[in-house]
C-alpha cells in the first residue's frame, strides 16, 4: 500500500512538469503529420518560402501555416516521415528558425 502511495505521489508531482515539457516541444510528430513552431513568421509573402521549400519534398502532401500561432503543419504522404534534423535544415533553408 505504501509503495502504491509513493508511486501515486511521485506521478502527481511530476505530471505537471512532464506536461509542460511536452507543450514546449517545438516539433511534434503525429501519424501522417508534423507540427512545428516557427520563429519570424510576420509576413505572408516571406512565409511563402516555407510552402515552396516543403512542397518540394517527396514526403510532403501539403502544408498549413497559422500566423496567429506561428504553427506550421506538414501533412505527410502515407508511411513517410521527415526527421527533426532535416526539418531544422528545411526551415533554415526557407529563411526561418524552429522555435
Amino acid at each position, binding site marked *: 500500500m505504501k509503495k502504491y502511495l509513493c508511486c501515486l505521489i511521485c506521478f502527481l508531482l511530476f505530471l505537471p512538469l512532464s506536461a509542460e515539457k511536452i507543450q514546449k516541444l517545438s516539433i511534434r510528430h503525429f501519424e501522417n503529420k508534423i507540427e512545428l513552431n516557427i520563429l519570424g513568421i*510576420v509576413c505572408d509573402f516571406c512565409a511563402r*518560402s516555407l510552402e515552396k521549400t516543403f512542397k518540394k519534398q517527396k514526403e510532403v502532401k501539403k502544408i498549413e501555416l497559422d500566423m496567429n500561432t506561428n504553427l506550421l503543419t506538414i501533412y505527410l504522404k502515407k508511411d513517410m516521415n521527415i526527421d527533426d534534423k532535416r526539418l531544422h535544415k528545411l526551415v533554415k533553408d526557407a529563411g526561418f528558425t524552429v522555435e
Partner: protein
Amino acid sequence: MRFIFLLITLLFSSGYCFASAVSYAGGTTLMQSHNNIFDSVHLHYSASSKYSLGYRFEYLNQKNLFAHSMQVNNLIFRKNAKNYQTNFYIKSGLGLIHSDTQIEPLLYSGLALDWETRRFYASYSNRFYWGHDLFSLINNRYRLGIAPYIANFGDFHTWLMLQIDHNPINDEELIVTPFVRLFVSNYLLELGYSLSESNNVFVNFVWKF
C-alpha cells in the same frame, strides 16, 4: 529600342523596392520597379537563404541611360523572433551603363536594414551608384508602414506605407512617396504617387517562384 526596354519593364517585373533581397534556397524572384529615377527589372536566384545572384536592367528615365549589371545580395544578419523579424543585407553590383554614344563601367553598393512585425514595418537602405562620367547617385531610403488589419497566411494583405528618398547629390534632394503595398500568394504590388517634379507614378511588382 527604348520602347522595348520600357515594355519589358512594364510587362514583367526590382529590386530596390522591397527588402526581399534573398529568397529561399533554390528560389527565383522577379522584380520590377518604376520610380522617378529608374525603371528596372531584376531577376535573381537564391542559392541559399543567405545570398542571391541576379541580372539587373535599369533605364534611367530622366537621363536616357541604360544599365546592365550582375547584382549580388548577401544576408549578413537575420533575427527571427516570435513577433518580429529583422534583417541586414548588403547589395552590390557590377556592370555597364550607356547612352546612345557612350559606354562606361558601372559599380554600385548599399546596405538594407528592416524590422517588421505583423502590424508595423520600418526599413532603411542606401545605395552608392557610380557610372563614371555618365551618372552618379547617393540614395538614402527610409520606409515606414502599418497594416490596417492583421491578415493570416493565404489572405489578401494590405499595408499603408510612406517612403522618403534622400538624394544629396542629385537635382531633387528629397522625394516623399506615399504608397500602398498589396500582396497575396507569391505576388506583391506597390502602388504610389511620388511628390516629385516629374515621373510621379511609383510602381513595384515582385513575383517569387
